[in-house]
């Protein structure tokens, strides 16, 4: 049995590659963790994959700014291959640091010239925060998530996750084009504008989010799994990855 081929891209400081790979495997994909140097050396490599996931971590130590250096590598050394990947309708998923990378490389919310129109700034608390959050999934351009739950629970773990659009017009455009995928519900942990936790491009095949879906693909990862009401559900993270790799997503 071979599922869709999913590349998990890593570099120095990436640290969620193994569990992301495991989540993809559970979702039915055939994951492969690849180092950026390998991908840069062989420009044809990316095209052999169906899904690209940029996982969480501290790429290059988040020196300069979170995700900035890896973003520049993608934007200046791999942009054609990535643009072709997106144009062919293949999915790119950025989680946490991967979201920061996609935003800073101009793939999200996405524009032809890869200009950056939104950012992820320091949390209002001024600190790294690790805890679980509640999310509302919007009806978005990511139609591959339509069959998943609308109320999500996932952990966050970041210091720079406050979503800020360039201006009101940028935000209005995101709303209009259904590019807002997730909002924090209840507590907004980092002060994100519009409580935005995840966005996609206009076509819905590039998505980025601060919470970690790969950390909720099995029941025992949930903080209340031992309370009876949490048993017997497909964890939302698994729903996410099943959707992402184009397989069954039913709640």
């Amino acid at each position: 049995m071979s599922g869709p081929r999913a590349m998990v891209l890593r570099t120095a400081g990436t640290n969620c590659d193994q569990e992301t790979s495991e989540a993809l495997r559970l979702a039915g994909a055939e994951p492969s963790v690849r180092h950026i140097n390998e991908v840069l050396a062989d420009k044809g490599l990316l095209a052999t994959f169906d899904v690209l996931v940029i996982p969480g971590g501290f790429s290059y130590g988040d020196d300069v700014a979170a995700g900035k250096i890896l973003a520049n590598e993608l934007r200046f050394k791999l942009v054609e291959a990535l643009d072709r990947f997106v144009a062919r309708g293949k999915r790119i998923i950025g989680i946490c640091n991967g979201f920061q990378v996609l935003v800073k490389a101009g793939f999200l919310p996405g524009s032809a010239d890869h200009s950056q129109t939104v950012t992820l700034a320091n949390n209002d608390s001024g600190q790294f925060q690790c805890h679980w959050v509640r999310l509302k999934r919007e009806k978005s351009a990511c139609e591959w998530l339509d069959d998943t739950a609308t109320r999500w629970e996932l952990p966050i773990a970041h210091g720079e996750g406050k979503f800020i659009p360039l201006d009101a017009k940028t935000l209005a455009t995101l709303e209009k084009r259904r590019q807002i995928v997730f909002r924090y519900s209840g507590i907004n942990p980092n002060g994100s504008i519009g409580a935005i936790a995840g966005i996609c491009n206009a076509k819905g095949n590039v998505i980025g989010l601060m919470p970690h879906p790969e950390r909720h693909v099995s029941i025992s990862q949930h903080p209340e799994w031992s309370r009876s009401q949490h048993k017997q559900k497909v964890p939302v993270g698994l729903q996410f990855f099943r959707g992402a790799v184009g397989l069954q997503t039913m709640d």
Partner: protein
Amino acid sequence: MLTKDSPLVQKIAILKGSDSQLLEISRKGLLSLNLQEMKVIQAYFKKLGREPVDAELETLAQTWSEHCKHKTFGGVIEYEEEGRGSRVYDNLLKSTIMRVTEELDRPWCWSTFRDNAGVIAFDEDWGIAFKVETHNHPSALEPYGGAGTGIGGVIRDILGVGLGAKPVLNTDVFAFAPRSLSPKLIPKGVLPPQRIINGVIAGVRDYGNRMGIPTANGAVYFDEGYVANPLVFCGTVGLIPKDKVEKSVQTGDLVVTLGGRTGRDGIHGATFSSAALEEGITSSVVQIGHAIMEKRTMDVLLQARDRGLYRGLTDCGAGGFSSAVGELGAETGVRVDLEKVPLKYHGLAPWEIWVSESQERMVLAVPPANWLELSELCGSEGVEATIIGQFTNDHQLNLRYEGETVGLLDMEFVHEGMPRVHRKAAWYHPVAEPKSAKRPRFQQRDYGSTLLKLLAHPNIAAKKWVVRQYDHEVQGGSVIKPFAGFDQRGPNDACVFRPRLDSIQGVVVSNGFNPSYGELDPYWMAACAIDEALRNLVAVGGNINHAAILDNFCWGDSQDPRELAALVRACQACYDIAKGFGVPFISGKDSFNNTWRDPNGKLRSIPRSLLISAIGVIKDITQTVTMDTKQPGDWIFLIGETREELGGSHLWKVLDKPPQGTVPHVQVAKARECFELLHQAIGKGFVRACHDLSEGGVAVAAAEMAFGGEFGMDLDIHKALVPHAIPDSALLFSESASRFLVEVPPMARPGFEALLKGYCAALGRVTKKRTLILRNGRTRRILLKQPLERLRAAWETIA
């Protein structure tokens, strides 16, 4: 060779030195070598007929440091106890702690006390390595850097165990002076507690989070005695394939350094950390860490391990290359060309290169045929790997710089030449004998306010302000997290995680730490630390029959016969209690001379501190439990006997009275049986929630369970098992060991009671109403009635 003068080396004239001159040389050179050791070195070089050079003396100082060699533990101690005669401990470590391991001889203990970490079996193919280190002195001088390199160092210990383990969990235990400490009590030259606390927590956070290793277990403890000498315990758990547990360096293998470059940071770290903290020590003894360099190094190292590219490996920690290379080449001999070592900047003398403790460096023994592949692998990920020498067969440590010999020592002298320490220890019983101790006085209405004060005490209150800054979810294996409930409502007793995501087996990690008992009775302090660590492990579903423990001693002045006697007593308890539980020690570490001068200039020792860290394997992670109440109508059982044991308890702390009375004792045979039965009960699904009783006793544990699950409790504390009648204050707040509160569904009650017969007593039920009620059933009086919101608010007070 070494007899001529050379600009590269400095000769140190010791051959004709008098005793006082030898001591002066040791002191001036920051060597921390005592007179006996200096004289042995003098004799060695007299035989060679030449003076030593700098690199040689430094090598001996590093290798023989208390930090590296456990001099006190390995020495001869004459112990004398008031009224009980005397006993000689020839190697305290071997005759107590390691003896447990030897006598128990568990087949699943794969590597104990001989490598960077202890290793136990996880399953047939994989092992779990565990090590806890201290980084106290660096953290006192430079909290951020000191603590960061503390966690960086213990991660490298795990990377360097056997042929390398993958780090899967970090644990941190900190001991500080309280933030509220009066500035008058802070000695000159010491950073205020606030700065030490914030710096340490940030340092561990920034390093640990960047490494992508979850931090899911730990503790923060406050006591004024840590003002000048905070304790920073950093631990790491690793996953290692069974066939990679052994190293085998061979003659002809290349000495390869991998990872970071060498600079002048951290010179004399090992020797400085073995000495007392004095005003005016430069912070250049503290290393400068770079987490991403370590992450890169780890990434290539684990790949190289799986491809079998090297035969030996260790980390560069205390003593730098001198310890790492010296250790790997102990059996063969080794030649090192120091000019080949990649440097951060020019200008280091050969001896500085040799002993620098720059971070993120590993040393490998690489068969020449594998060098090219290793070098290519490292290059592909931007990691520097450099050949700096070769293992020989001449049993010598041969240091060269551009072809010229700059140090030449016999390996045997380096590793076996150290004279043993002889020390005297004398124990006399503390002034406050249990019988003369006063009972705490209470008005009935005080119980509620006392409970609120206990919950708000910094040692008991929620540590969310720390825990939330640490990524405890990365790697995706978390099963039982630091806090119970979605909104982190209550403190779980231990963490459980899956190191392999394709397995339902888990690992449980917990700790025990009770310095406040140590003042009154170090024996029972140590016993309670072991009991607490194992109690926490059992409370979440762990099995003491597949569990191991680590000891980390942080002690004061080892030359002081009373402090040393306290250490002997603590070690004796380690033997008695661990043996009684049937749980082996697998690794440990000791840090002595944690002394400081108070503002009046008096030399003080820190509180006697023993951290016990426990680790165990859980066969099925679905058979674990959290501490929060889950269902109104369920029964609440108290497991274990309650005695009037308030010595060193937190009750005295919140009453602001000196500690007195009896320190909790551990009845180990009963405790062992009880822990085993409780484990079975959890496995049978009889238990919906379980919480260990520690600081603040029944009252605190009941409150935590109640607000943790947002259901109340109505309990009659006079139902508790008591060998002798005791007052309400003791029933509520005594810290007697080996006890738990357990939530049992009505349906499971008969089975549970039958299983734990003689150990359990039903106190009452979980209620829907969000109130905690504790009653005296005999007088029919309510002792304490508090809404959960108020209890929780007290617990969430930020320390």
